[in-house]
């Protein structure tokens, strides 16, 4: 089992105990941070990769774990905070277990992405950029997803959903609720 797989397995194990779905691991659980640090040889230069792995486990970067990394690798917390806020890929607040990204690019826009957006917002009861109260679904709008021929499109957890329309999108989302 290689290192990436072992991290993934660890994640699965953590998630299994809490009824599945991403982002349900709790901060500072089961030596997660230490294991990730070991994988990267405890090198401060690997901090971006370390934070990526952390986010892979928790779905966001929990404050206690950032403090732990700061202590273990002797990186000032200000530095970690700067990195975590600089890159869009990092989040400091938890997101829902499922992530829905709706494309608002030109082609999707022309084919009615605005109406789809309204439909999703109605269905989930949240605005774009928000997370449902039960932490199940986060919804955001993005720019072009690069498959304009299938417009309008959205990505739900890494799976592409194509040729959306505002009448049926609610049913599509139902299984994630």
């Amino acid at each position, binding site marked *: 089992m290689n290192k990436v797989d072992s991290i993934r397995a660890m994640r699965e194990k953590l998630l299994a105990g809490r009824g599945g779905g991403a982002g349900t691991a709790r901060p500072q659980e089961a030596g997660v941070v230490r294991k990730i640090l070991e994988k990267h040889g405890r090198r401060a230069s690997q901090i971006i990769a370390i934070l990526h792995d952390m986010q892979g486990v928790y779905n966001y970067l929990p*404050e206690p774990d950032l403090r732990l990394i700061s202590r273990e690798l002797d990186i*000032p*917390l*200000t*530095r*970690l*905070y*700067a990195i975590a*806020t*600089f890159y869009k890929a990092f989040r*400091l607040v938890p997101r829902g277990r499922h992530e829905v990204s709706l494309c608002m690019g030109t082609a999707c826009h022309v084919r009615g992405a605005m109406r789809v957006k309204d439909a999703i917002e109605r269905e989930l009861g949240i605005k774009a950029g928000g997370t449902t109260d039960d932490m199940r679904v986060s919804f955001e709008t993005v720019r072009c997803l690069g498959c304009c021929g299938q417009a309008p499109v959205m990505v739900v957890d890494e799976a592409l959903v194509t040729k959306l329309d505002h009448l049926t999108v609610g049913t599509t989302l139902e299984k994630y609720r």
Partner: protein
Amino acid sequence: MKFVLNGKKRMAAKGTTVLEAARAAGIDIPAVCAHEALEPYGACRLCVVEVREKGKKRRRVVASCLYPVKEGLEVETETAKIRKLRKFLLELLLARSPHALYVKELAARYGVTRPRFSKLDDDCILCGLCVRVCSEVVGANAIGFSLRGISRKIDSPFGIDHSRCLACGACTYVCPTGAVQMEYTRIMELRREGGEHRCRYTLMGFLPDAVCSLNYECFRCEIDQRYRGEAGTHPMLVRARTKRSGKARG
């Protein structure tokens, strides 16, 4: 090392930057983010000059705070092109901080009084002096940058964590515009925490275990007067200067 500065032949030691050499020769180059106690940073770009390396035809615009003097280098510090570049930068700075006296005066020197860009009202010009003083000189790393682009700002971790701050005030001291008030924020916090108030100069490592009896009103305290008086600058910066010159000698 021989080089030419504004048409005059000059000498400088190896490793000297163009900015240092020019200042030693009494030539004024505006530089917001440069500080003698800190490593060169190259953020403000106001210290740009034109240089031509030995044997090269083309003149290049470089940041003098980062550019080392080279043998046979020709440096021009106030050409029309350089003035134009600085003017533009100052216009941007003035648009960001229209009420900061420091920025206003600097801009006025280059004839910029009214920027054509829409104005903000933020005294922080993101020169990073406070952040670098806190990490390079004080070693506390209590403040840093956060976010990026137009939202970039100076912040403590998670916006609230001041626990690493010694309330030394070095950041407030070096801030050219008075935007950083971390020192006062921390002092207020120390006051609120109650208990034994340890003297700021103990936290800074100057005094062994002194306790403050004045509720951190340092302007009434003779310890504060003494250290500031002796130094003529912020005491932390004096220590840094001796450290840095020691490094240069070694």
